[in-house]
């Protein structure tokens, strides 16, 4: 795993402790994807409080935290699914705070929702085609890449997506998102409700995708396993940055382990 130079161990209390609070952002050299000091929520009350999430190209960034910590909300805020009252979102340095989710798709973001993330009464292939709806060029190459990544989908490409198993549906969902050839892939709890074996398999695929240079941002309930594959991890509590460090250091911190990873 690559060491992140951007984030320094602010507390300086030895290698075993993870950095507390939000990441330090260098304004002259911002990370590829950045949700900076985001504040907002669905109703009148704020869920996110000055929450900052950053992700780099070719890396897997994972957001973890207890229930109700605002993990999914943070991701949705980055994708433009809720209005921010403060803060901004940038991609490659470009401010996209005012864009709708659809417009962000055109900017290279792809989002895999936690549930209802496929078109159940359409075939696997049609699901992928719909993923590429905005593209006017030949999509056969991208589709072949997705099939290489998920060979089982090629096998079942004429089957209805709704008839597949849970793990296969997640593959369809990820594959659909990849069809736009995004630079950022965002996954909301991709392993919710799948078996441990399927989860490992899915994480392997996600690592593979990251290696091709995509920015991966993922919210995970299975924090320990997710941090194992994460380059960077964010621990959120009540909509605030609690810890921010590499996956390995978060896993090594006894305090983080005890409070958030179940010992």
């Amino acid at each position, binding site marked *: 795993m690559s060491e992140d130079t951007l984030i320094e161990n602010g507390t300086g209390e030895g290698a075993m402790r993870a950095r507390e609070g939000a990441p330090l952002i260098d304004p002259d050299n911002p990370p590829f994807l950045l949700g900076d000091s985001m504040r907002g929520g669905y109703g009148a009350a704020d869920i996110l409080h000055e929450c900052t999430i950053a992700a780099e190209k070719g890396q897997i960034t994972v957001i973890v935290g207890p229930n109700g910590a605002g993990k999914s909300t943070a991701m949705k805020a980055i994708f433009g699914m809720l209005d921010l009252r403060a803060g901004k979102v940038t991609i490659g340095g470009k401010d996209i705070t005012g864009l709708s*989710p659809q417009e962000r798709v055109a900017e290279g973001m792809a989002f895999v929702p936690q549930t209802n993330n496929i078109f159940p009464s359409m075939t696997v292939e049609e699901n992928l085609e719909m993923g590429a709806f905005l593209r006017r060029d030949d999509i056969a190459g991208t589709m072949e890449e997705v099939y290489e990544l998920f060979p089982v989908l090629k096998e079942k490409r004429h089957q209805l997506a709704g008839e597949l198993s849970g793990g296969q549906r997640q593959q369809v969902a990820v594959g659909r998102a990849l069809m736009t050839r995004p630079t950022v892939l965002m996954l909301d709890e991709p392993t919710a409700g799948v078996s441990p074996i399927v989860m490992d398999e899915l994480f392997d695929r996600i690592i593979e995708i990251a290696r091709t240079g995509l920015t991966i941002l993922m919210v995970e309930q299975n924090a320990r396993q997710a941090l194992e594959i994460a380059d960077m991890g964010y621990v959120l509590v009540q909509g605030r940055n609690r810890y921010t460090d590499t996956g390995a250091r978060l896993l090594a911190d006894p305090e983080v382990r005890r409070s958030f990873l179940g010992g």
Partner: protein
Amino acid sequence: MDILNAFVLLANFVIVPALAYGSQLALGALGVTLIYGILRFSNFAHGDTMAFGTMVTILVTWWFWSMGISAGPLPTALLALPFGIAATALLVLATDRAVYRFYRRVKAKPVIFVIASLGVMFILNGIVRFVIGPDDRNFADGERFLVTAREFRQMTGLREGLAIKTTQALTVVIAILVVIALFWFLNRTRTGKSMRAYSDNEDLALLSGIDPERVVVITWVIAAGLATIAGVLYGLDKSFKPFTYFQLLLPIFASAIVGGLGNPLGAIAGGYLVAFSEVAVTYAYKKFFAYLLPERLEPEGLMQLLSTDYKFAVSFAILILVLLFRPTGLFRGKAV
């Protein structure tokens, strides 16, 4: 010979009429089910949309007659049909702009859409009666029969004749062509697939960059086309009367629900199921059994299960049975 006669009798009075009627219902139900799948409400104005399209077609037909244009052996109305479809498409798009779009924007409950469609129904009903009046209109011309009963008897030597009206044959042929075209569109074209995607999972369709307003516009245009074709075919086959078209709502809804609301294949199956049940249950089988049974067993009564006045009860009974035992419809629609 008697068995053949019995079969021909049945074909003449049950199978052929039910095929034609079923095709008309199927086209109507397809329109309802598409609207339901995309816009997610039961459009109570659909019957009157059919009436409107038919009315425009009739007016253009009359105009053609006055100019001496005809389609030879085929009904002139077929030439006027594209005008009817175009006018109806404009009409439904206008109602969508003026009425439904607002409720989409505020994300109103489905039942509000239904009530709005009641308002549209009133208006269309008023327009149609205002323009063409509430009375029966017959606008079929051209060759009346493809095969007359007499020709059939001479040809086969049977005692029973099988008459096939041109309009019946046309109905079935046009319905098949329309259904093939519709399914090709939905399953093979990018736009058609985006409609299915939208119907399947609206949020994900948005994430994929599918433009909902475009989908809605196309859906309305297709529904207008289906409604007009269904209405004109029904009117050619029987006759045009605004109130009858309003009453068609029940069998059409029954067809769509039986097949599973939102499921196009189901709508077609539902249409034929309702039509065959309706015709079969209200047919008097006396003569049919007279052919099959020995003379002393010949039935006394009409052997009619239900008087034709109750044909609506058949749709209703089917509807109730489906709601009781399989509310998602035979083909698994979207709604519970």
